[in-house]
């Protein structure tokens, strides 16, 4: 059926409204992504002969990457980090906080503020603050706490580096999880809980049969956002460990930085970035499919 003049005009207006956003999206997201793909097929560098005259090297960066144990290590470390801090740590604690804050608690406002507080500190400041808490020696906060209980102290960032960055990132991300999950919880009508209660359902049964299924779209949306954003975490972990010791906390983002700005190999760094982008894309599509959201 042919579009009416009014419909065509409305479409044109819509395009005009969207155009600035599309231009910005193209300039700052799509073009850099395409350029990164181009760079990944070259030996472009920040210094040395390749900086003056970069060459097309075909798939060399990718074959090097798939044979690079450090790349696989970075991918593995990122997987554990995302699983530990975003999917388990932030989600569980965020959900607990969201449920707790729906009840009439004493000091509810204070409790909410405390949970939001980690987001108030810039990530590098937060990183340095955690260094002072987790450092070796008898004066560091965590060592003082454990020695109070008669337990041995340690240089926590050296002995348990990956666990520590998971803890720190969980601390930092609870607020976001809580806000999103609170919004999800508020969409569940109270009448359903009341009816279930009258039917004799226990709190555990109500959580399993009502809360979780009805919140599933919100949970999956949260998982999508937190997974993709946690894959891209850089500043907090870089300030804490710089990817060390010995690559134990070298996330894919830090690996990309190290290849591009420490080894100055922009082409190789771009190849790693392209793979990281693909991983994020695959996870994003998987979540969207699971949530049965139409995009």
């Amino acid at each position, binding site marked *: 059926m042919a579009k009416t003049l009014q419909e065509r005009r409305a479409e044109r207006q819509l395009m005009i409204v969207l155009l600035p956003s599309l231009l910005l999206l193209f300039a700052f997201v799509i073009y850099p992504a395409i350029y990164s793909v181009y760079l990944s097929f070259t030996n472009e560098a920040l210094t040395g002969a390749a900086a003056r005259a970069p060459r097309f090297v075909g798939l060399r960066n990718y074959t090097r990457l798939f044979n690079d144990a450090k790349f696989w290590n970075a991918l593995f470390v990122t997987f554990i980090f995302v699983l530990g801090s975003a999917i388990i740590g932030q989600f569980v604690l965020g959900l607990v906080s969201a449920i707790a804050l729906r009840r009439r608690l004493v000091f509810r406002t204070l409790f909410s503020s405390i949970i939001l507080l980690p987001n108030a500190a810039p990530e590098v400041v937060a990183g340095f603050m955690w260094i002072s808490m987790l450092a070796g020696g008898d004066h560091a906060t965590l060592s003082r706490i454990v020695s109070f209980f008669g337990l041995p102290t340690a240089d926590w960032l050296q002995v348990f580096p990956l666990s520590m960055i998971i803890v720190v990132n969980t601390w930092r991300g609870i607020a976001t999880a809580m806000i999103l999950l609170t919004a999800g919880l508020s969409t569940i009508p109270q009448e359903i809980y009341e009816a279930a209660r009258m039917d004799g359902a226990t709190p555990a049964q109500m959580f399993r049969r009502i809360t979780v299924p009805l919140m599933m779209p919100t949970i999956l949306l949260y998982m999508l956002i937190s997974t993709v954003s946690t894959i891209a975490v850089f500043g907090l972990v870089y300030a804490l460990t710089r990817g060390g010791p010995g690559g134990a906390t070298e996330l894919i983002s830090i690996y990309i930085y190290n290849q591009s700005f*420490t*080894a100055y190999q922009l082409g190789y760094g771009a190849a790693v970035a392209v793979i990281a982008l693909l991983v994020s894309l695959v996870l994003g599509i998987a979540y969207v499919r699971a949530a049965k959201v139409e995009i």
Partner: protein
Amino acid sequence: MNKAVLGGLCAILLGCTSTLVQAETLRLANHGQAGVDAMKSTVERIEKKLGVTVEVVEYPAPDKDYLSKLLTELGAGNGPDLFSLPSTAAVADMVEAGYLAPITTEINAWEGYRNFYDVAKKLAVSPDGETYVMPYMLGIQEIYYRKDVLEKAGISTDQPKTWDDLIARAEEIKAKTGAYGLLFPAGVSWGSGAFDEGFQHLIVGSKTPQIVTDDGKLDLSGEGVRDVFNVYKTLIDKDLMPVQPLLGPEPWVIPKYEMFPAGKLVATTCGSWCYIFDWGRESKTPIPDVLKVVGTWTVPGQAGGQYVLANLAGPWAVNAKSANVELAKKALLEIGSVETQVSYAARIGNIPASKDVAKDPEFQKLTELVPIHAAAENGTFLKQAAGFGTVAEGVARATDALLRKEVDAAGAQKILVDYVTETLGEDAMK
């Protein structure tokens, strides 16, 4: 109408004036507040003498981050007109990238250059035979040791003759005092220091004292490289060197600023600046009578010989793509002046490259540096080549693996060779 025309003319005039002013502005990138302070009077002199405006941009970051920022700007074509470089190792690569303007003609014609130590001049010459940097300051490094601690424990303070002798001394220190006997900077966290302040000291006295062949290729498979890593391995395995602090984010803080002043680390490589800034009058943890209680040894060779390492300290260069290359070169010669050298020596503790500085009354007040300056000509150095920045990173990675006791000396050498080969390609290797 007339008003509009007048307004337009004013705007054009203003535009032309600002363009002219812009053309007469030189942008200098300096590393750290101390460097900016040291350049203050030089900047005023350049402005007065050359009739330009100098804009000083401070990049207050660790060496590695400073270099990354600088390279990114240069690569993007919007780098400063003049800039200081954190180490000699970066120069050859930057020359290959086309970032640095050659200054051979200007510097050789400049009267001040005749008084520079030969070692500085040699260090400034790039593999292509041209000079690209102003080698006005030298980093002179040796082993610094706690004379008081050794004397109290009845341990000889004589110059160790060989590597074995040095390790034996470190063992004796550990056995008699319980303190760590020797530190060579190592690991990824120390950045280029693992190479500049550690590896280089030993390789120059090894069986293969150069890592660059005559045709400019990197030769890292030599016996000397493995033997150097073996020294690290021995120090680490025998617990003669502090390991745990070196794996942290600021590895120099605990060993140099806490352990050494407290006598818990007795010997470490360091440069002339250590007498003033690490343990002297400008230190937060000064050692009383530092010149008396802290002595120096040259670094012994594997089978004898004595080596004092010389590097260019923060050499300055001109951006090849600067809009004011000729003006920037003139400003560069001012940076090479005796006055600037003394100013840097006072604030950073490096050694002026000009012999004339010895007569300067202001320099004579820097009593810690005077004897080191007098002996600076004897400095040893590695022949430079493109790829040294990558070698430095490879050494950091290899020594990091040694610190974590994951590899032996041969394994560390393999990490170094593999990293450099992967990064620079087979063509760059012998």
